């Protein structure tokens, strides 16, 4: 019977886990993200409200668990048939209305409290008022990458969402409108907010107001097709100045550099332009990520690989080698063309 105690230990283990989360259980990501992508180190108001509710619900659940667990163990141990049993049946008890009433009313009260606590957080997260200065971003889910449009600033980025840090004196929350170009997706960066789905032919929204700078990891949380697993997501939270600098750069067109003219010619002459935009060229496709400032990103292929020349070359040569099932086809370029086009991509800063 001792094995049945295991669940109890697990619950206790979970509480310990949360405490270590409170102490800042840092799982360092090689690419500089500050902590493991979990809800127990919130860095934004929605995530924080959920975190506090989670602690409350966990404590209530743990209390219920310990009570019922102890009662079960007690009755199993106390009322086991002993070896000295006289073989007679125990007293036949059919029920008791008082006892039934007690264990009906108590759970009702607990449920009411949990409901009220949840409703409060639902209201605070779903029905906020946004201060002036709120950043508007439109996130569009694609198989299997993220498009981020900044309508106020007039440019489009991909896969890495840049937002300014928001402090309580000068709040600059980011309001994200969620759309989908194909199937269902879900935007989930646990340290910043709960997830919200991106559903085609439907407009959803969510908001974050990160209190600290850094890279926050997440990924698509609604099964969206073959490469759902590598539809990763990162939110880069920057100081106001860094954010403005990043915006100013993103608004630039791609610079035309003579040394990579051959690569640009390969890009413009192949089917690349059907799907990809590079502002200032004839590449105006919108099916794939905007590449105008490709090199300002830390990763490629929606986070599946770091943005290095080698990975870029591997990716252009055959995307399936990095992300089998990705929607980008292998472009059948020869080695020279590959070198040229990678050199061109490396110039897109």
């Amino acid at each position, binding site marked *: 019977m001792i094995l049945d105690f295991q669940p109890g230990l697990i619950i206790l283990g979970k509480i310990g886990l949360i405490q270590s989360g409170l102490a800042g259980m840092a799982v360092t990501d090689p690419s500089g993200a500050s902590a493991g992508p979990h809800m127990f180190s919130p860095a934004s108001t929605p995530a924080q409200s959920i975190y506090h509710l989670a602690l409350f619900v966990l404590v209530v659940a743990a209390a219920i668990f310990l009570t019922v667990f102890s009662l079960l163990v007690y009755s199993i141990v106390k*009322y086991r048939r002993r070896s000295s049993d006289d073989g007679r049946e125990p007293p036949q008890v059919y029920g008791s209305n008082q006892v039934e009433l007690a264990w009906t009313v108590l759970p009702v009260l607990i449920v009411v409290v949990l409901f009220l606590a949840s409703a409060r957080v639902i209201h605070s997260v779903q029905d906020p008022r946004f201060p002036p200065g709120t950043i508007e971003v439109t996130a569009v889910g694609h198989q299997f990458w993220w498009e981020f449009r900044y309508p106020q600033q007039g440019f489009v980025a991909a896969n890495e969402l840049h937002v300014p840090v928001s402090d309580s004196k000068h709040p600059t929350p980011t309001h994200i409108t969620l759309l989908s170009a194909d199937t*269902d997706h879900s935007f989930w960066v646990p340290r910043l907010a709960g997830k919200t789905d991106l559903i085609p032919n439907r407009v959803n929204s969510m908001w974050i107001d990160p209190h600290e700078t850094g890279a926050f990891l997440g990924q698509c949380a609604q099964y969206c097709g*073959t490469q759902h697993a590598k539809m990763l997501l990162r939110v880069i939270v920057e100081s106001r100045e860094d954010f403005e600098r990043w915006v100013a750069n993103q608004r630039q067109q791609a610079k035309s550099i003579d040394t990579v003219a051959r690569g640009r010619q390969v890009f413009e002459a192949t089917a690349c332009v059907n799907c990809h935009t590079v502002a200032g060229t004839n590449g105006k496709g919108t099916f794939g990520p905007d590449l105008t400032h490709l090199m300002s990103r830390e990763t490629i292929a929606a986070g599946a690989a770091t943005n290095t020349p080698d990975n870029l070359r591997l990716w252009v040569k055959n995307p399936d080698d990095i992300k089998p099932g990705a929607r980008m086809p292998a472009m059948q370029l020869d080695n020279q063309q590959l070198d040229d086009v990678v050199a061109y991509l490396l110039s897109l800063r």
Partner: protein
Amino acid sequence: MADAAPISRPIFPTERAASKPLFEYLHEWVITVDHKRLGILYILYALTFLLIGGIEATIMRIQLIVPHNHFVSPQVFNRLFTMHGTTMIFFVAMPILFGFINYLLPLMIGARDMAFPRLNAWGFWMTAFGGLILYFSFFGGSGLYGAGSAPDVGWFAYAPLTSPAFSRGHSTDYWIIGLLVSGFGSIATAINIVTTVLCMRCPGMKLSKMPLFAWLNLVTGGLVLLAMGPLAAAQLMLLIDRYLGGHFFDTQAGGAAVIWMHFFWIFGHPEVYILVIPAFAFVSEIIPVFSRKPIFGYPIMVAATLSIGFISMSVWAHHMFTVGMVSYANAFFVASTMAIAVPTGIKIFNWLGTMWGGKIVFQLPMLFCIGFLFQFLIAGLTGIMLGAAPLDWQLGNSYFVVAHFHYVIVGGILFALFGAFYYWFPKMSGRMYNKRLGLLHFVLFLIGFHLTFDFMHIPGLLGMPRRIYTYEPGRGWDMWNLIVTVGVFFQAAGILVFAANLLWSYFKGKLAGNDPWDAWTLEWTTSSPPPPYNFATTPVVKSRRPLWDLKHPEDPDWKYE
């Protein structure tokens, strides 16, 4: 007169299968309309699919044992989780429960068969063909497009991933039609269960004198009738979308993906209770017998079951807290979801009350029921956590959810089912199971279950989404996934021991006799296995425990009920 024994002992000896030519023997099974044979067919069919679904799960866990593993390709992984989920729900859990209900219900209410024996056979064969159609997709899934494939849309097949644009070939059609066909079988069985409970009870068995088993499965039957319709409707609409130019779920032409979700979960959430209420029914029969006391608070248990059935029809959108419903809709579904915890809690307390003051005998069926109690308690509590919508925004679609519902289905339903297997195996086969093998099965499965599903909660809490064929290292998920996978092998070993035990005991087990557990319900009055007509003379009962009355004429139940 009032104290006269109400039940006649069987007058015919146990019938063992006489030796017949194999073909004739199989032919008898194929054409049978006997509820006991159909019950056993359901159970054997479901056990076969349990092995298949288990193998699919094992392959997935091997793929996830380390990050960036290449054991299977993403396409294969996506097919595996689709087939695993669909198989386990529709072709393991439902048929196995229907099998037990079919076998036991007439015996427990003193009837000679179900109300509609031929409909019963039809229901079974529809379910069986449904499973075969689904699995034929491995060969015919891509139709004229080339090599075969199974569906890869997930077991809840969210639109628009099922639209022709994203799901080419015929794999999704096999998924739709397989489930439609088996769904009609389920509806037939539900009609049969409800009618049997309402019309076929033996003299003296008023509704208030039925075993809880009959009450609970009456509610199950009602829920099946209510829930299968929306699923069938949605699947027909999807077929219309796919082949007749409909746009119900076709988002590119103005259709709504969210409507599919509503339809699916209006089926999908009652489905959870369709599966768990029969498990409650097993536990409600087994715990009293091995505590040597009647069930505590019978009327309250009935009321709690009815209210679970009722409330379960209004909680479906807690599967959809992240789809962008307005705040008051989310709040409503939080309230209804949490409300269902009350009658469920009452049930756990009543089982506790049944054990309290009893003399608990730790036979194998009882061990599994005790496992059920602890595990179902935890599953309920994680359910409450997920029912708080804001927590669901973080935990929904993560491994926490996967751990939660496996805790319900494996830790709750499957443990109760194993209890039922060992409890009624002597009745069905006429022989006792091997107790040592049974204990080994219990220990292995308990260890495996807790290794797998306790630790599966943790990567979910740490932000690992479900349905990913691989994951990034360095996010704190690696070790937990390793432990989870190790647990799977313990479970697999447990299942093999269980299968071996069934086979060995069927041929070599000790003869069990009519009533090996000193139990109280009518199935124990007849021989093991029961003759085709069940009872030589129709029993007459005066209380919920007719055999108690028979064994204790000095202190019968009917004086107190």
